[in-house]
C-alpha cells in the first residue's frame, strides 16, 4: 500500500516539491502503476537470464587517449554563477 508518506519521501529524494493534495493523488497513481507492473510476477522467469541492458551490444570501449575538453568560456557559459574559475553553488556544509 503506497501512502502519501511514501510519496513525500520519494519526492524529497527526487527534489520534487509537491503541494497540498498532490501527494495523496500520486499515492493512488503509484499504487495503480505498481499493481499493473506486478502482473509480471505471474510469469515463470526461473530459466530467463536477467536483462541488464536492452541493446544486444557488449564491450564498447574507448582508448586511453586524451582530447581537449571545454574552454573556460564554454565551461562557464551555462553556469548560473561562477567565482575563481569554479561553479558557485549554495553553501553546502553548515
Amino acid at each position, binding site marked *: 500500500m503506497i501512502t502519501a508518506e511514501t510519496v513525500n519521501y520519494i519526492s524529497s529524494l527526487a527534489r520534487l516539491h509537491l503541494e497540498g493534495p498532490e501527494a495523496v493523488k500520486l499515492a493512488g497513481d503509484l499504487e495503480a502503476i505498481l499493481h499493473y507492473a506486478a502482473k509480471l510476477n505471474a510469469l515463470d522467469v526461473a530459466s530467463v537470464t536477467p536483462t541488464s541492458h536492452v541493446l544486444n551490444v557488449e564491450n564498447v570501449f574507448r582508448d586511453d587517449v586524451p582530447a581537449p*575538453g571545454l574552454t573556460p568560456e564554454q565551461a562557464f557559459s551555462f553556469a548560473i554563477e561562477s567565482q575563481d574559475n569554479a561553479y558557485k*553553488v549554495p553553501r553546502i556544509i553548515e
Partner: protein
Amino acid sequence: MSTFETVIGLEVHLQLKTRTKIFCACPNVFGGTPNSHVCPVCLGLPGSLPVLNRQVLFDGMKVGLALGCRINTFVKFDRKNYFYPDLPKGYQITQFDFPIAQQGRIAFISGGKKKHVGITRAHIEEDAGKLVHDAAHQCSLADYNRTGTPLIEIVSEPDMRSAQEAYDYLTALKLTLSYLGVSDCDMEKGSLRCDANVSIRPLGEDRLGTKTELKNLNSFSALKRAVEFEAGRHEGVILGGGQIVQETLLWDEAKGRTVSMRSKENAHDYRYFPEPDLVPFTFDAAVIEDVRRTLPELPAAKQARLMTGHGLNDYDASILVQDPALADFFEACVSAGAEPKKAANWLNGPVMKELNDRGCPLAGLKLTPANLVKLAARVEDGTISNLAGKDVLADIVVSGEDVDCVIAAKGLAQVSDDAMLVSVVDEVLAANIKAVEEIRAGKAGVTGFLVGQAMKKMQGKANPKKINEIIARRLTHG
C-alpha cells in the same frame, strides 16, 4: 581489560593514473586551474554519453588479481543516485551486483602474527568533484577537474580486531597496490583514501554490533587514532546504557575526535539501477589469464624469495620490499658478487640514509650496483675505513664516479704500511704512559682511547682494527 572486541572493515578508494578520465577523453591529472579539464560528459551535460576507458577495466582486473580475487567474466555498471554539488549528473556511475572482482584475501604480519583479511569486492567507479567552502561569501565552489577520475573501491570483510590491525592491513594493501603501478597510492594527494566501519561487541559474541562509518582519514596515523577513539566512544555509550546510532562521522584531526556529519542530505537511499548509458562487458578466462601474466612479482612473494633465496632475515627482507626498485637493486648487487647480508646492510643503512636526506627515489641517485659492490669490497678489505666508506657513498650517489677514483682523489685510502703504523703507535704509547700502565694492570677498555689517539695522528686513514692489533702486540712484546 575490556570485555568488548572491536570489529573493523575498511573501504579503500584508489585513483588510477590512466592518461584520461574513466568515461571521457579529458586528461586525468591532479590539480590544475579549477575546471580546466572538463567536457560535456564529466560535467553531466544533457545529451552527453559515457564510454568506458579500456585501460580502467584492465587496471581493475590487475587490482583484483593482486588481491587474490575472483574476476567476474560478466561486468556491468549501475547508477548510485544522490544530490550533492560535487556530483554534476546527480548520480555516480559505479558497480553494484556485478563488480570486476570479488572474494579475495590479503595476508600480512600484525603484532608478530600472520593475519588474513578477506576482500569482499573491488569495483570500478568514478570520482566526484571537489568542493571548497567559502564562508565569507556563504557559498561553496565546485571544481570538476577530479570528476570522472577512475577509482577502484576495495571493500574488506570486517576481519580486523584492533586499530593496529587496520593500520597493518592498510600498509600491506598500499604496498601491494604500489607494485602494480596503476596508481600513485598517495594518501596526502588523495589518490589513496580510506573509510573505516567500526563496531564493538562483547567478547565471544558472534553478531556484529551497530557500526559507524568514519570518513576524512587522511593518513595512516589518522586511521589508527580515529578507530581507537571511536571504539572507546562506542564502549562508553554502551556501558552508559545507551545505543550506538548508525551514522557517518568525520574524523577531526585537530580535536582528536569523531564528529557527526551535519549534512542536509536524507539518509542514504541510493536507488541503484543498471546504467542504461553503458552496455555490459564480457570476456573469457583467457583474457584474465593474459592480464595475470602481466602482474609483477608482488611484495609478499618477493619477500619470501629474498628470505629463502638469499638467506635474508625477515627484517632486512621486509625493508627491501618496501620499494621494488630497492629490492631489484639488491638482487643486482648479489648478481654482481655481493654477499647478500652485506648488500642488504649497505642498502638498508647508508643508502637509505642518502635517500632520506635527499628526499629522492633510488632512481634519482647515480648509484650503480657495480659501484656499490666495489665500495663494500673496499671497506671489507680494509682499503678504506667504514667512515670513509660513507663519505665515498655520499660522493658517488651524486657524481656516479668510480669508487677507486674517488678514494684516490680524496686521499681516503688507509695506510697499510706496517712500519709507519708501528711508529705512530709507538709515539702514542710513549706519550700516554699512564694509559699503558692501566692496560697492563688489566683495564683493557683504555685501549680504545689509544686507538683513537693513533687514528687522530693518522687523520683517520688507518684501519682501527689493525691499530688495535699493533697496540696489543707492542704491549705484550714491546
